[in-house]
């Protein structure tokens, strides 16, 4: 499945890339991340207990960051594997400074979903992906804004993240906090890919409830 899109952050490119640096943040930035370790210079492996909507699952995730060109672009290769299936994805992220201090993010990726996920979750895969990406990026942007304002006023700003999606919630929580990092940023994109497959689990062409 091809994924591509744009998103505008309400902050300067350096700040956005700033938002993205320290690997430790991942453990908290990713919903229910149990463990996470850097296994190579640009390689991370972790186990996440992901939950979206009614669906939860333990997923082993692996992320490889390559062609990193701060503060512009990088390539992310993600593998996620769980009981319900697997997902392999590769994505390119590009940051571009645009007028009035905003940053335009362009992303495009190719995701391969397999197992139960692919076979019974087809109906809304693409919508699910869009939904997750948007929620994730919104949350980050809120965090960014909160952080920028915090820098000016010196005190932390409150903002309401979307509920239920624990992904969004916890990411937001951590973003609002002090430890913000580039790896976190990448992981969120990576997590997006992994979470797509979780979300896909939710989808079965059934009506009512």
């Amino acid at each position, binding site marked *: 499945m091809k994924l591509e899109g744009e998103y505008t952050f309400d902050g300067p490119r350096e700040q956005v890339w700033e938002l993205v640096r320290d690997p430790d943040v991942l453990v908290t930035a990713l919903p229910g991340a149990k463990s996470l370790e850097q296994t190579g210079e640009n390689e991370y492996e972790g186990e996440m207990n992901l939950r979206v909507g009614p669906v939860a699952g333990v997923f082993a995730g692996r992320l490889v960051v390559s062609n990193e060109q701060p503060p512009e672009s990088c390539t992310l290769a993600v593998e996620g594997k769980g009981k319900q299936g697997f997902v392999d994805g590769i994505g390119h992220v590009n940051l571009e400074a645009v007028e009035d201090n905003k940053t335009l993010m362009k992303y495009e990726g190719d995701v391969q979903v397999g197992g139960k996920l692919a076979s019974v979750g087809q*109906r809304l895969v693409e919508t699910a992906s869009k939904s*997750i990406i*948007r929620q994730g990026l919104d949350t980050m942007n809120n965090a960014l804004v909160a952080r920028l304002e915090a820098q000016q006023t010196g005190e932390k700003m409150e903002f309401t993240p979307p509920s239920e*999606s624990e992904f969004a919630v916890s990411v937001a929580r951590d973003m609002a906090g002090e430890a913000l990092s580039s790896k976190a940023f990448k992981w969120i994109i990576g997590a997006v890919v992994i979470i797509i497959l979780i979300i896909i*689990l939710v989808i079965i062409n*059934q*009506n*009512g*409830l």
Partner: protein
Amino acid sequence: MKPAPFKYVAPSSVDETAGHLEQHGYDAKLLAGGQSLIPMMNFRLVQPEVLVDLNNISELSYIRLDDDGGVRIGAMTRHYQVERNPIIAEHLPLLYETMPHIATVQIRSRGTFGGSISHADPSAELAAVSITLDGQFKLLCKRGERWVKANDFFIGMFTTVLEADEVLVEARFPKIPERTGWAIHEVARRPHDFAMVGVTACLTLDGRNRVQDARLVYLSVGEYPVEAVQAEAILKGQEPSDEVFAAAAETAATQDTDPSSDIHASSDFRRHLVIVLTKRALRTAFERAIDNSQ
């Protein structure tokens, strides 16, 4: 295809339910009609630790007419009950007309109003209708209760503003204004399948038969039921005509909605269907509005 093990509790009151949710948070999953949840559990896509069965809570099953003409529907009211209810037939004709579109007779025997809303499936008719009819939902938890407009309730696919400890207990719909017409149109591969695209519409006319208010809400074209705000704007104040309807339809398809592709329908085909169905729905709604103005 057998579900994974879970802890089962069946509270007999809303308060008890809130207690369980407070205790288990996201580890608990509410079981209403189960017509979407149980298939997912049978596929082992969903494996909740705790299942909180709402089916023993009789206090949540009712349909009431308020003095002001509004209608209240308890969260555990089942589809077949709404489908056959005279209050709904008289006061919420759009909802009444929608019910038979929902899945099949066996699903409607079990499926519940609140369950369908809380599940927040972008293809679910009830979610779209609730927005079209200006519905509000009452959410309850140990911390208290709050009302949320249907329009603000859905925030992502299968994602709503419900917090982990909250349960939706009631939906309320205001009286429909005079001189209002309605319509629901869907295109599905088979009539009982999820629609590839669906639209629910309400059109209210003023004294001079111009559009005073318009609602267009779509299924299966986005992350959640999508209201075509820009298309509505085009309609308001206008004298209804095929041209105006066409303009609104065009805007709905190009400005208001961003449908995805799946194995049944491409994004492109869905946009096409948005145009087709919008015109049809607006015509139907307009004719009915005229009839209701007699």
